[in-house]
């Protein structure tokens, strides 16, 4: 699995042999005095190889910045943590011809996201010469603050540097939007299929025989592998003076089709080609599961709604399902029904997906459901509670309620699923029951 980041104007990828001319040019320029230069081409080779070695041995290093428009190497930006370094750094250096155009900022933002989200770093520093005003300005623009003077290890022990930095908690999204990885996936796919509108529909539109839903799911998976460090901020319920005893559950909670996702499949190691292969395989697998479920009495939407009603009832809250029509997207509603005087709150329930998932090739299949719930006051439409409940969802963002699967419902392969459709349905019901129980419990 190759590592490559893409920004509006740049490709960021690990060091490659072809980058050396640009690297040597940078290190020969007087502006490199802040980063160990100027040095001869021969001397710069050592630093170049050290960077390539960092990628090869430890799996990260500074990215080469490749300008999309020209295809040229214009600098290096990214994580750097040599022995004895004062912290986990994201540094930068660009050719004079590329300076002042915002490239370093663009690359640093992407690199810092990657370091926080993929490397799992919790803190990032920038060691900057006090005379390097452009870099200090960039650090500030990135949201880093001055921490004081720093000391670098040999052979840089005589350098004077100030340390700028920020923690993961300081930087980053205000709060991850619901199902952020799906948003990532949509954006990742958008440039590839810009003329095609993403849809939940299983049959239309499609791309060359691969339904968009399948491609979307594949991209969701790809995105989810790097989304583990994002954060979800819930709204806990605060009981008011008037206890809530009557709730309407707004329907169309589940997507139209079931999902059957093998997270770390063999194909997932082969980029977009692998995603396309996955899309086809998942399509076939989902069809098989749906065909099996069609042989037993199973209505996913009706089941989860019934379980929500039962869960609320068990907590002394009268609940009924309010028909709401088809959701255009797997998101909370924008407008809520007009108050009818019968209920005190609406429970908006929306799932990104439900179905079966496997951690990877050769691993068992277990039920999964990823559900958002929002309790809204009636009248007033004020959010009283909001949470995300992830039943057997890998890499759920921090702050999401995570529920491990019931070990009873396990299938080793597609044939086992086909052979026992009742167990297949019961596994999903088990997931729905846990989600419903949790949702009702959250407003106690």
């Amino acid at each position: 699995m190759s590592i490559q980041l893409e920004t509006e104007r740049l490709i960021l990828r690990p060091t490659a042999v072809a980058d050396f001319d640009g690297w040597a040019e940078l290190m020969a320029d007087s502006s490199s005095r802040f980063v160990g230069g100027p040095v001869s081409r021969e001397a710069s080779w050592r630093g170049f190889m050290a960077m390539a070695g960092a990628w090869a041995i430890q799996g990260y290093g500074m990215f080469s910045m490749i300008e999309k428009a020209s295809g040229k190497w214009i600098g290096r930006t990214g994580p750097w943590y040599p022995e004895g370094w004062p912290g986990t750094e994201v540094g930068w250096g660009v050719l004079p011809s590329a300076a002042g155009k915002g490239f370093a900022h663009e690359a640093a933002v992407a690199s810092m996201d990657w370091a926080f989200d993929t490397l799992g770093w919790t803190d990032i520093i920038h060691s900057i010469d006090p005379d390097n005003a452009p870099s200090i300005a960039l650090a500030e623009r990135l949201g880093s603050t001055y921490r004081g003077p720093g000391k670098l290890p040999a052979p840089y022990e005589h350098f004077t540097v100030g340390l700028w930095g920020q923690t993961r908690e300081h930087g980053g999204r205000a709060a991850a939007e619901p199902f952020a990885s799906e948003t990532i996936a949509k954006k990742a796919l958008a440039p590839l299929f810009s003329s095609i509108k993403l849809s939940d529909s299983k049959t239309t539109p499609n791309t060359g025989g691969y339904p968009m839903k399948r491609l979307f799911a594949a991209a969701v998976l790809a995105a989810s592998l790097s989304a583990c460090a994002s954060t979800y901020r819930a709204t806990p319920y605060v009981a008011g003076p008037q206890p809530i005893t009557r709730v309407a559950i707004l329907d169309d909670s589940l997507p139209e089709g079931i999902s059957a996702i093998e997270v770390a499949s063999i194909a997932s190691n082969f980029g977009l080609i692998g995603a396309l292969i996955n899309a086809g395989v998942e399509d076939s697998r989902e069809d098989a599961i749906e065909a099996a479920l069609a042989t037993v009495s199973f209505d996913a939407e009706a089941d989860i709604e019934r379980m929500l009603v039962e869960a609320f009832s068990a907590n002394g809250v009268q609940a009924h399902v309010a028909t709401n029509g088809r959701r255009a997207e797997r998101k909370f509603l924008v407008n809520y029904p007009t108050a009818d005087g019968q209920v005190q709150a609406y429970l908006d329930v929306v799932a990104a997906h439900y179905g079966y998932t496997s951690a990877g090739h050769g691993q068992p299949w277990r039920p999964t459901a990823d559900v958002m719930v929002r309790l809204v006051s009636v009248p007033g439409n004020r959010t009283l509670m909001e949470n995300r409940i992830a039943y057997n969802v890998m890499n759920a963002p921090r702050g999401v309620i995570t529920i491990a699967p019931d070990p009873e419902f396990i299938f080793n392969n597609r044939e086992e699923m086909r052979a026992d459709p009742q167990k297949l349905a019961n596994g999903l019901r088990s997931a729905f029951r846990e989600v419903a129980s949790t949702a009702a419990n959250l407003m106690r």
Partner: protein
Amino acid sequence: MKAHLLVGPALALALNACATPVPPAVTSYTAVACASAPDLARAVALPAGKPRGEVVRTAVDGTTPCLDVAGFKTPYVVYAIPTLANRMIDVGGAIEAARAFPPAVSILGADGQPMRTLPANQFYHRGDRVSVQFIPQEGERYILITVDPALVGTSYSAVATGVSVTYIGVGINSWTSGVDETVSRGRSYHGAVLATVYDTSPEPASRPNRRRD
């Protein structure tokens, strides 16, 4: 708190644990001189919080002060709640490779007297912890975290899934594969307490240039 609830990413902890010593669950407690009330002077001040959360981790070990609650001895941690509006706090016990700290949480007033106790059925697994979330109310000044006497010393097992990335030695290529296994943990007197303060103000101040993808 249900026994089969589990943090998803916790498998990573278990996998990492193969290479490093795994702190074991401490299922009995031998402290002798325990106070009858928490020492508020030792309260750890929680930070002001950030929109995506600001985390405080406090280790609980043999040096942690203890409380004697009606004959039950327990280590305890006290956090001082930031006196700011629009804050949400997530507090709980860390889930580690072989153990988890089973939290019991009370909210205290300025005088150290309990104002409310957060019920056990409101604790959920959330990523790296078993925690409860709440919005501080008028007059609430401290959070007291002890072990839950009903749970400490017990153990639980749960299915954990994750991915394993293997570097395969050529260039930058790596190979991702899935892992699915049952992990057992002991609910331990020692471990760590985690608190995250979220700034829920309508217009949060976050790094404005972070990519919004």
